[in-house]
């Protein structure tokens, strides 16, 4: 009785409080996201790492972190960016840039569908595009972009991965001349780089660059189906402000979506047009046979000014600083998301071509025809929520738009433009992802929200908190929250793909008979130490459970010591690690059949133990050795060996 009264009073008191944002999770949510131990997830989810510079791979629907792929940032955990083989990957014309801000990802496409061969990633800060091989989950190529700053509307693809397209968020003077910042309107330009992709090997090259009037190219998407030949970019700061953009770039009621006919531009370039410009940019490639990356500085790029591209570029007015610019699976609708607008405009590709044919222009923007808003508009989604950012599609006729300010996902009908459902996100959603939701063939089963703020969602960890993701089941009419998990770095855009497309192509080991590394050691009998001046090359092998040689003497202070470690194992999941005391560099993780090199320059005489850092076997702890470093000028002879061949050990 008292209890009942107590509960009644408590409820009454609660009723006076403001509602807080507790999650509403329905009964079987746990079952929907539960992947039993030993079972596989249905999808891979590749998620950008934002300021971490890396890419994270999660399983869906479990949210389990499967791997962190090092891309633009050094990764001491496995030696990426520290080993002699991987150092060239992070080389740029500004020297080694060992970090970046990684925002967007796209899986390679064939006929507008994910083919699961490569994953492209952008570096926002020091403009670069990386290619990750999805058989090894390894970064195999990084291409720097000249005439670019703030590589944000990147890397988005044409329908058959003909091009990776990379537009600039920051306008800068093309050709790097020294001009006053206030001369923005005359001197600052936006550029769009068209990066061709080799059909067989995936190798990237800058085919040409299109120079546009100074503005901020925010996001972009390739057309598909009927709009195959086109590419679309959202823009802001068409006011051309160079200071206090918060106010000065929000003046105009409408900015633009740039519609570019890349097919026509390609033909124009093929006819020999375009100006060759002397520039410098780094092109870094990893070779899977030599296990070695190389960095080359390329010197030339073909540049086209928008003024020579008549009938190839048009502007579509779009309300209030559009952010997302997304094309639906049919290729018919282009969704602009004005992040300060109270509606979502949806443009029709058919109307766009008709308006262009009828020259239905309302004016020009620096010589580029501006189409009439109404003549291109399919319709507006009214009152969708606040702060629309990005839209993904389920392939069943619905769009799902993230709302940053009102922290929600809104589902709407593409044809009728009616909002049919909305769910809260926790909190402040940025991007969202439906596996394949940006392609011709979405796997419309889940939508994942990537959030900027977590506040009270998890146990507190001091002032710095994790960002998060939430998975919603969208197989029914209503979106249903089924899981919430923290992420590494700050997730921006992500890609999801059915596991079946890539899992069976995953490489297990590197075939040692195909190892063409310059310093490979083909078998323990060939392990040796070679001195050339003050350079010492150690040809070392690793196999369960010893390193050979494991005793090395005759190395002096100041020598440049290179440990070239070859993992002789040919069995799946038997990597070896390598680390040496006081090395200011990093450690190595060496996969079966691979050779990796760690440089060590001892600063003091002494005994330096080295060992395997990856628990490889029952005798992993015994996998260790010594490097004796003697004072410079002493005459300790160079001696090395393992077991009976070790210096000072008499053969039995």
């Amino acid at each position: 009785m008292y209890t009942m009264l107590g509960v009644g009073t408590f409820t009454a008191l609660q009723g006076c409080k403001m509602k807080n944002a507790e999650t509403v999770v329905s009964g079987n949510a746990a079952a929907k996201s539960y992947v039993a131990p030993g079972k596989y997830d249905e999808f891979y989810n590749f998620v950008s790492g934002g300021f971490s510079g890396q890419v994270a791979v999660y399983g869906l629907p479990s949210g389990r972190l499967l791997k962190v792929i090092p891309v633009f940032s050094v990764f001491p955990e496995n030696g990426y960016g520290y080993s002699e083989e991987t150092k060239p990957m992070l080389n740029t014309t500004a020297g080694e840039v060992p970090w970046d801000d990684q925002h967007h990802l796209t899986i390679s496409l064939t006929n507008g569908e994910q083919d699961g061969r490569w994953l492209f990633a952008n570096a926002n800060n020091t403009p670069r595009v990386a290619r990750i091989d999805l058989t090894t989950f390894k970064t195999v190529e990084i291409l720097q972009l000249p005439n670019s700053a703030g590589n944000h509307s990147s890397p988005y693809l044409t329908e058959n991965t003909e091009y990776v397209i990379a537009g600039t968020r920051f306008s800068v003077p093309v050709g790097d001349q020294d001009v006053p910042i206030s001369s923005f309107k005359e001197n600052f330009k936006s550029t769009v780089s068209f990066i061709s992709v080799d059909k067989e090997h995936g190798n990237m090259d800058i085919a040409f660059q299109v120079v546009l009037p100074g503005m901020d190219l925010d996001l972009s998407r390739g057309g598909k189906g009927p709009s195959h030949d086109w590419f679309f970019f959202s823009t802001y700061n068409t006011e051309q402000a160079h200071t206090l953009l918060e106010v000065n770039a929000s003046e105009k009621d409408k900015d633009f979506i740039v519609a570019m006919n890349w097919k026509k531009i390609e033909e124009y370039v093929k006819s020999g047009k375009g100006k060759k410009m002397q520039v410098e940019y780094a092109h870094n490639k990893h070779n899977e046979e030599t296990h070695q990356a190389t960095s080359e500085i390329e010197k030339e790029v073909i540049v086209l000014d928008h003024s020579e591209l008549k009938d190839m570029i048009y502007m579509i007015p779009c309300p209030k600083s559009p952010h997302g610019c997304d094309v639906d699976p049919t290729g018919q609708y282009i969704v602009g998301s004005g992040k300060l607008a109270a509606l979502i405009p949806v443009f029709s590709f058919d109307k766009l071509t008709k308006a262009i044919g009828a020259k239905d222009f309302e004016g020009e923007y620096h010589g580029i025809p501006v189409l009439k808003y109404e003549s291109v508009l399919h319709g507006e989604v009214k009152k969708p929520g606040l702060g629309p950012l990005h839209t993904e599609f389920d392939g069943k006729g619905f769009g799902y738009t993230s709302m940053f300010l009102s922290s929600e996902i809104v589902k709407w009908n593409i044809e009728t433009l009616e909002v049919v459902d909305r769910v809260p996100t926790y909190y402040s959603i940025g991007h969202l992802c439906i596996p394949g939701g940006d392609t011709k063939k979405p796997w419309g089963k889940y939508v994942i929200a990537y959030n900027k703020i977590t506040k009270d969602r998890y146990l507190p960890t001091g002032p710095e908190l994790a960002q998060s993701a939430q998975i919603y089941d969208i197989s029914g009419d209503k979106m249903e929250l089924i899981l919430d998990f923290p992420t590494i770095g700050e997730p921006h855009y992500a890609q999801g793909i059915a596991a079946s497309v890539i899992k069976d192509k995953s490489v297990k080991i590197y075939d040692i008979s195909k190892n063409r590394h310059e310093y490979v050691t083909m078998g323990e009998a060939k392990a040796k130490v070679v001195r050339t001046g003050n350079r010492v090359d150690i040809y070392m092998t690793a196999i369960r459970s010893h390193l050979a040689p494991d005793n090395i003497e005759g190395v002096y202070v100041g020598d440049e010591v290179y440990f070239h470690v070859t993992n002789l194992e040919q069995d799946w999941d038997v990597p070896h690690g390598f680390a040496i005391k006081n090395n200011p560099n990093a450690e190595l993780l060496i996969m079966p059949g691979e050779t990796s090199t760690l440089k060590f320059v001892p600063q003091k005489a002494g005994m330096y133990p080295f060992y395997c850092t990856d628990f490889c076997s029952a005798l992993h702890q015994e996998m260790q050795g010594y490097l004796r470093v003697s004072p410079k000028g002493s005459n300790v002879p160079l001696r090395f060996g393992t077991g009976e061949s070790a210096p000072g050990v008499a053969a039995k």
Partner: protein
Amino acid sequence: MKLTKFGKVSVVLIILFLATLWKFPMWDIQLGAPQYPGGLSMQIWINDLSGDVEVINGLNHYIGMKTIHKEDFKEFVYLPLTMMIFMGLGLVVILLNRKKFYYIWTGIFVIIGLMSFYDFYRWLYAYGHDLDPAAPLKVPGMSYQPPLLGYKKMLNFEVMSQPHIGGWFYIAAGVLMVFVCFYEWKKSKTLIK
């Protein structure tokens, strides 16, 4: 006394059965352990080894077992030669067309078979017992002789040893031969009556 028609046909069949030894492995040894979810296996052919031999060698160094190399087995030269001669003798049996030679032929097969199994057992015994005294892992009283046929648990490994397709044909050849011998013998007795 002459061979029956069935007897003659059986010789051809047996030769065909034995020819499968060049197409399929004779024996299959499977190993399973928790950290090898897909299992490991090794196939023994009349003239070769296949499967995860290198991986198995890598593991066996812990217990000091000798590494397995194709070159160590002279059998891979002698056995194919023996079998080819034996198959040739089959043709001779048809030509001579005498029951007596069929019995002798069968006898030779039984001897080859027994010797082969004894040889196989000897190898398994040697690998299982001739261990490096300096091996990292020594379990007192433990030997690692894989079973000739059937299942055995050794430390963290489960081992299953059984005939492969070629082996089954080899066994079938032997069974058929012995059966035909009885058949021929029976026939000859009824004729005498």
